[in-house]
C-alpha cells in the first residue's frame, strides 16, 4: 500500500506543473475536498524549484552564458528526466553536460555543454579526496637512468579536459563579474586540480596536454615525453614536468614496468 502510494506521489512530483494527471494522488488525500491540487503543488514546487537552484549553483557560468531563463528551462527538463540518483546534492549534475549536449534547444550553442563539463570537473575536484601532492624533490633522489621509467599517480582531484572551444577566458571573466563573451571555436586543454583546499584551473599547451594525458594514463615519463614532443617539438620537457610536480597534478610515483610503460 505504502509503496504504491509513494510511486504515485513520486511520479506526480516530477511532472510539469501545468500538466494534469494528479487524480490518483488526489484520491489518496484527506483534505476535505479543499485545495488538494494546490497543496500537492507546494510539494511539486519544492522539489522542482530546489533542484533547479542546485543546478544553478553547480553551473553558474553555463547559466550566465545561456541566460538564466533559458538555463532554468533546460534544468527543469533535465531534473524531470534525470532526478538525483543519490540523496546528496553535491553529487547532482554529473550527467548534466552530456544531457545538455543532446538538448535540442541548445543545439546552436555547443559551448554550453562544454562549459558545463568544465564546471562539473571543478565540482568534482572540490569534493575529491584529500591527498598530499607529490614532492618535486623526489626526482633529485633518483638516478638518471631511473627517471625515464617513472610513472605517476594522479592526485584524486586532477582532471584533464579537452574542449573544442576556448572556455578558460570566458570562465575567468565570469568570476570577475564581467560580461561573458561567446567562447571562440578552437581546441583548448584545461587541467583542473586541487593541491590544497582551492581548485585551480590552467590552460595547457598542446605538448603539455599530451604529456599530462599520457602521465595521467599511467604511462612512463619517457613515453609521455615522446607523445609531447610529437605534437610540440619545442616543448621544454623538464619545465613542463616540474610544473606538474610543483602544482600538485600527481600524488605519488612508481617505477613503470619495464617495456610496458
Amino acid at each position, binding site marked *: 500500500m505504502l509503496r504504491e502510494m509513494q510511486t504515485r506521489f513520486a511520479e506526480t512530483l516530477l511532472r510539469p506543473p501545468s500538466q494534469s494527471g494528479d487524480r490518483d494522488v488526489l484520491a489518496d488525500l*484527506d483534505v476535505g475536498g479543499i485545495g488538494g491540487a494546490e497543496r500537492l503543488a*507546494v510539494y511539486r514546487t519544492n522539489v522542482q524549484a530546489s533542484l533547479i537552484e542546485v543546478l544553478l549553483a553547480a553551473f553558474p557560468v553555463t547559466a550566465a552564458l545561456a541566460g538564466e531563463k533559458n538555463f532554468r528551462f533546460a534544468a527543469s527538463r533535465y531534473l524531470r528526466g534525470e532526478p538525483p540518483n*543519490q540523496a546528496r546534492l553535491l553529487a547532482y549534475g554529473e550527467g548534466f553536460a552530456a544531457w545538455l549536449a543532446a538538448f535540442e534547444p541548445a543545439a546552436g550553442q555547443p559551448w554550453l555543454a562544454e562549459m558545463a563539463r568544465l564546471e562539473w570537473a571543478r565540482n568534482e575536484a572540490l569534493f575529491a579526496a584529500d591527498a598530499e601532492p607529490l614532492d618535486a624533490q623526489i626526482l633529485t633522489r633518483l638516478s638518471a637512468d631511473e627517471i625515464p621509467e617513472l610513472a605517476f599517480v594522479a592526485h584524486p582531484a586532477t582532471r584533464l579536459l579537452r574542449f573544442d572551444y576556448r572556455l578558460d577566458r570566458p570562465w575567468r571573466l565570469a568570476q570577475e563579474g564581467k560580461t561573458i563573451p561567446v567562447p571562440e571555436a578552437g581546441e583548448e586543454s584545461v587541467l583542473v586540480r586541487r593541491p590544497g583546499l582551492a581548485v585551480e584551473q590552467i590552460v595547457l599547451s598542446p605538448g603539455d596536454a599530451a604529456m599530462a594525458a599520457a602521465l595521467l594514463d599511467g604511462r612512463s615519463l619517457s613515453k609521455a615525453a615522446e607523445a609531447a614532443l610529437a605534437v610540440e617539438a619545442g616543448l621544454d620537457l623538464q619545465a613542463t614536468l616540474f610544473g606538474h610536480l610543483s602544482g600538485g597534478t600527481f600524488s605519488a610515483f612508481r617505477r613503470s614496468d619495464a617495456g610496458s610503460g
Partner: protein
Amino acid sequence: MSAGTSLVRSPELAVARAGVGLRHSHVQAFLEERPETGFLEVHSENYMSDGGPRRRALFELRRDYPVSLHGVGLSLGSAEGLDPAHLDRLVRLNADYEPFLVSEHLAWSVHQGAYLNDLLPLPYTQETLDVVCRNISRMQEALGRRILLENPSSYLTFEASSIPEAEFLALVAEKSGCGLLLDVNNVYVSAVNHGLDARAYIEALPAAAVGEIHLAGHTRREIEGQPLLIDDHGSRVSDPVWDLYRFTLGVIGPRPTLIEWDSALPPLRVLLGEAAKADACLAACVPEVLGAA
C-alpha cells in the same frame, strides 16, 4: 578520519543550550571569529564527500563546538527500505565528526533510486509504523547509537491515516527506541494547516524521549480562503512559535534548541540573536543536566 585532525578534548554539550544551523555563507565568519554559541548543526548530506574544504572546515569547527548531524536524505519512511550506500556514508560521518546528536525526519524522499529533495508526507498507518521502525532500527544498528526522529511539517494529510501524528511518533519512539527531535515550528505549521491543537500535540509526546528542539521561520499563504503555512526556514521565528516554544519548555523541560535558517540567510549576528533569545527562554527554565543522548 582525515590526517592531521584530532577530536581529543572536543567540547560536548553538558547543559541545554541554543545553537545554530551552520550554513555555507557563515562558515568563514565562524572560522575567523568563533562566535559563542551552544552548538552547530549541519545537514549530514552536505559533508558526504571524499574530501575538500567543506569537510576540513567542519573538522576545524568541531574542535570548538559540539556538532549535531541532521540528515535530510535517508528517507526513513520509504517502503523500499534504506539505501545502503547512503547509510554507509552516514556511518563514516558519524565516526569522523563524533556528533553529540544524530537526527533524521519522519518523512520520505527517495523512491526507486530517485532522490526528490523534499521531506514528503506519510500516511500514518500500522504499515507505515512497521516500515519506519524497521528503517530506524537499521539506522541505529549501523551507527551504533540512538537517533532522534523529527516531526514533519506538512501541507496535506492522507485518507488512509488512522493514527494521529503525535501518537504515531510516540509509538515509533517506544518500538524503535529512538528519541525525538521536536520541531516546534513544524508543530505550529501543521496545526494551522490541518486545524489541529498544537499544545495538545506537544502534550501527547513522550517528554523524556525528546532530545532536541528546532525553531525556524515560516511564511503564510491562503488556499481558498484558508491559511496554508509554508515551512521555508527563511525568516525569524514567529511570535506564536516563540509562545509555543515557551509552552513546550514548561511541559518537557529544557532541551538543546536549534535555530534553523536555510533560505534568505541573514547576517550571522541576526541568526545568533535568535539563538540568544532561545537561550534566554532556556535560562528561565529550571536547568537540567542532560543524560547521554
